[in-house]
């Protein structure tokens, strides 16, 4: 049975949209703090629709990194969407045509993917449009609000909001790390190598550090703890 109700999609998207709004608020603030105009920040959110990639991209923009560094870091950080998109090929309505698939692809984020791939056996185009609509709105609007609020918020509050995105990252990685030792080891390898790079006296772009740490940690993880077939997330 394929779920293809637009309104059901909108409804499922509400909690995701609220969550996105508060995280992208922090992104908007960080952009303005780094000297990026609000409307560029909104454009980034609207066209990228991804948290980790955007925060890393912002770091590279602020540091004046190379376009290669930008492209490679986005590639590595967002490589997970490849796997999600691949999983979605098994979940979307087989009748879905190519333009519809191209539009649905834009909305594949961790949360939207998790919801659409776990709640129903199959999803149609109308449902996916409903599900994607509010999170996109929340993500973009939150960015604009954060960027606009940045200039009027006191410094102490701006600083305090800076930790939000990382708090959210902790909430994403720690519960599965608690459940599976292999994930814990991968997270620890990534975190420790990332800290070591920070302490090294040589200058490496932040995007490259993330790429190197990810290749090392995920590679070692795959080597040490290969997952059983079919056990994708």
């Amino acid at each position, binding site marked *: 049975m394929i779920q293809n109700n637009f309104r059901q999609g909108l409804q499922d998207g509400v909690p995701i949209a609220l*969550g996105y709004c*508060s*995280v992208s608020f922090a992104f908007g603030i960080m952009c303005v703090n780094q000297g990026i105009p609000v409307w*560029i920040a909104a454009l*980034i959110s609207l*066209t*990228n*629709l991804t948290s980790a990639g955007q*925060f*890393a991209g912002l770091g590279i923009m602020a540091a004046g990194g190379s*376009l290669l560094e*930008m*492209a490679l870091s986005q590639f*590595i*950080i*967002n*490589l*997970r*969407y*490849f*796997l999600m*998109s691949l999983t979605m*090929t*098994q979940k*979307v309505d087989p009748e879905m045509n190519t333009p519809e*698939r191209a539009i649905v*692809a834009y909305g*594949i984020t961790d949360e939207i993917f998790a919801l659409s791939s776990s709640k129903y056996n199959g999803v149609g185009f109308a449902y996916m449009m409903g599900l994607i609509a509010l999170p996109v709105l929340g993500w973009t609007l939150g960015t604009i609000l954060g960027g606009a609020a940045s200039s009027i918020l006191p410094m102490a509050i701006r*600083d*305090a909001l*800076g*930790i*939000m995105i990382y*708090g*959210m*990252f*902790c*909430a*994403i*990685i720690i519960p*599965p*790390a*608690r459940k599976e030792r*292999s*994930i814990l080891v*991968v997270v620890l*390898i*990534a*975190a420790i190598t*990332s*800290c070591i790079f*920070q302490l090294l006296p040589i200058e490496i772009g932040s995007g490259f550090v*993330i790429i190197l*740490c*990810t290749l090392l*940690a*995920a590679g070692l*993880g*795959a080597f040490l703890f290969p997952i059983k077939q079919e056990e*994708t997330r």
Partner: protein
Amino acid sequence: MTRLFTYVAVMAGVTYLIRCIPLLAYRKKITNQFVQSFLYYVPYAVLGAMTFPAIFTSGGELIPSLLGTGTAIILAYQKRSLITVAIAASVVVYLASLFL
């Protein structure tokens, strides 16, 4: 400004291509176990590398940030929701910076 646009175009282009290529082109399953495992661990590795050590200075000063980090880790360990963890860490950083 042109430079900013170029950055945004590269970011958005790469991100979109990753999302759309499998959905448009691929209809089979990945069978290589190493690739499957690697992709499975990628999100955790990325987030681990992005969070540490950045979180230690994400709240401005070191001490408030460390207290916020501790809060985030404890609440995340208790499986609280993303929003709860994010807001609580932020409140702790704010309060700590007021009193320290």
